[in-house]
């Protein structure tokens, strides 16, 4: 029981950078901009955050640097795609590779150098609660923030006027424009705020969950974050669930390494990535015309709950995602 609690707490911790990265991607994609550079941005944020935190001996400064770097990468993406008409996919992909190489090059002096890290900070009183204490309240400030970020983004997107505008940019930019919303400027804003969150996710690795810096420190986690956003159907709570599921898989893989002999550990490391794709395929298959036809042929009492379930599980991307916007 205690071991289970420890493992669950480890899952919550391991998912925290993913929460930041996916929420950043979500904000950007809801506004219609796909930021494919995530993996590179996370690496560059991790490297820069660690280097600055080390040089200035200040963890907050490290996080701030990472956020600025993330916003800057997003700014380049916006400039090239929104203003200069280049494909968001192409620019994002190139930025992903370029930032990865930059992180390797600029990070070379700090490889495996010990440095500062986010301090453990159990919350007084709450930390002593049975069950909930060890699960939720014995972490560090970054992880507490990851708990708060999901409801915050959900509230922002679905309960505020700003969120409504943001979603309009991703669904019907022409209508938003006709209502007098500065489409491009708002997209810049969303993409850069999202990019800052992604940068922070990077710093969370180098300053908190995987402390220090090494070559390709975060191993493809940005691509996974992009996949989780799709898996979560561009809805904050389901994306968070995806992050926790993925983190749980990682922990299981880590724990079972000693248990299963004959299968090399490296094979386990790729398992979560593969499962992610399988789940994506299953989710999308639910929406396939063939399956819809089968469901339609079911008897009435069965059909209704299944259709309802399917529409809940399947979600479409923002209609204008990745498409260039031209003033009508």
């Amino acid at each position, binding site marked *: 029981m205690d071991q289970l609690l420890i493992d669950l707490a480890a899952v919550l911790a391991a998912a925290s950078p993913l929460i930041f990265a996916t929420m950043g991607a979500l904000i950007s994609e809801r506004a219609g901009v796909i930021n494919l550079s995530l993996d590179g941005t996370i690496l560059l944020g991790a490297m820069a955050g660690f280097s600055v935190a080390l040089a200035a001996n200040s963890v907050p400064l490290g996080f701030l640097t990472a956020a600025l770097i993330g916003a800057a990468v997003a700014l380049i993406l916006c400039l090239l795609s929104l203003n*200069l008409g280049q494909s968001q996919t192409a620019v994002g992909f190139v930025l992903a590779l370029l930032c990865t190489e930059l992180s390797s090059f600029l990070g070379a002096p700090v490889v495996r150098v010990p440095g500062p890290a986010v301090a453990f900070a159990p919350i007084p009183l709450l930390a002593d609660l049975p069950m909930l204490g060890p699960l939720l309240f014995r972490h560090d400030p970054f992880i507490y923030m990851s708990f708060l970020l999901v409801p915050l983004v959900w509230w922002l997107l679905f309960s505020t006027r700003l969120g409504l505008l943001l979603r309009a940019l991703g669904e019907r930019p022409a209508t938003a424009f006709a209502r007098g919303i500065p489409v491009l400027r708002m997209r810049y804003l969303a993409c850069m705020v999202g990019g800052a969150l992604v940068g922070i996710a990077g710093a969370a690795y180098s300053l908190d969950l995987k402390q220090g810096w090494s070559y390709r420190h975060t191993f493809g986690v940005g691509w996974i974050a992009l996949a989780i956003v799709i898996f979560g159907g561009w809805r904050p709570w389901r994306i968070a669930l995806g992050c926790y599921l993925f983190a749980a898989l990682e922990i299981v893989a880590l724990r079972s390494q000693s248990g299963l002999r004959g299968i090399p550990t490296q*094979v386990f490391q790729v398992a979560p990535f593969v499962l992610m794709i399988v789940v994506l395929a299953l989710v999308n*298959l639910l*929406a396939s015309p063939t399956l819809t036809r089968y469901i339609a042929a079911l008897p009435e009492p069965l059909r209704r709950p299944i259709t309802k379930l399917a529409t809940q599980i399947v979600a479409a991307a923002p209609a204008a995602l990745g498409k260039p916007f031209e003033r009508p």
Partner: protein
Amino acid sequence: MQQPEISPPPGVAPTRIAFSALRSTLLALLGALALTTLVLLSTGVSPLETYRILFFGAFTTPGRFSDMLMLTTPLVLCASGLTLTFAAGLYNLGVEGQVVLGAVAAMIPLRLLPDLPPPLLWTLSLGAAALGGALWALLAAALRLGARVNEIFAGLGLNFLASGLALFLILGPWRREGTAAASGTAPLPRELWLPTIDNLRLAPLAPMLALLALALVWWLLSSTRWGLELRAVGLSPAAADRLGVAAPRRISEALASCGALAGVAGGLQVIGVFHQLIPNISSGVGLLGLLVVLLVLARPIWVLPISLAFASFTVGSVQLPLTLGVDSSIAGVLQGALVLSALLARGLR
């Protein structure tokens, strides 16, 4: 996906086009050099010395020159394949996994029938490599067409799966005796290595195959109805469909062809370069190939010169840590910066 404009718009004089192309090429070069120089200066190393080694290092000795040609080979093969998928409007990020699967498949005849005459065995091995890469690409096609998983994510997932599979084989069933099992399978017997010139690592058969593949892709895209249909699908799948082109079919064919070429690249890495299966058998040539294709707007004529340039940067950079104490990833920074500033220059045109 946006397909770049290749033919000049009507009513514009060809000389003006040429001038504008020259201007944006220069702009792209200057932009990339400016960014790379800035990065170098920020770490306090001499940019001129670094550029000298980066640009000319691959041409200083015959050994390095052959390494450069042997890196150009898989790069040209991948870029040729990716030219096809780009024409069909696809971002085939799964190309890395297709290279790995090609290498794995190439190992099968080598392990099962090592007593065949080498030329026959090489043919079998490369055939298996092409098949392996094509099947892996078809998996991505099935995910995209059957389950509507975007080919970018299908490809990425399959890349991780492919590298897991290679690791599993290296550490499991194909494990070599003794220590250092993680570094790769047992080396192939000498007589199964692709023949090289003198003592150099240059196996001329490999670059020749790559050139053949590039010529084939060029011909397919410029002179066949299939190539035309592929580009139609890339420009507008819906319009192509209405004109009677089977878009799903063309998409599968483009991915499978790209996979086959990437597979051959992987097979050549095994029999011509490493002479064993190693965990990092693709060494990132697939993603580098994607950069090449983005830089040249999927025009086959430019694939060879740009591949040669990129390969020479990478080979040149290998000497940087020893001679100047500079990390070799600056080659990747330069390659990425070139493509980024080419996109910028195109946007400004």
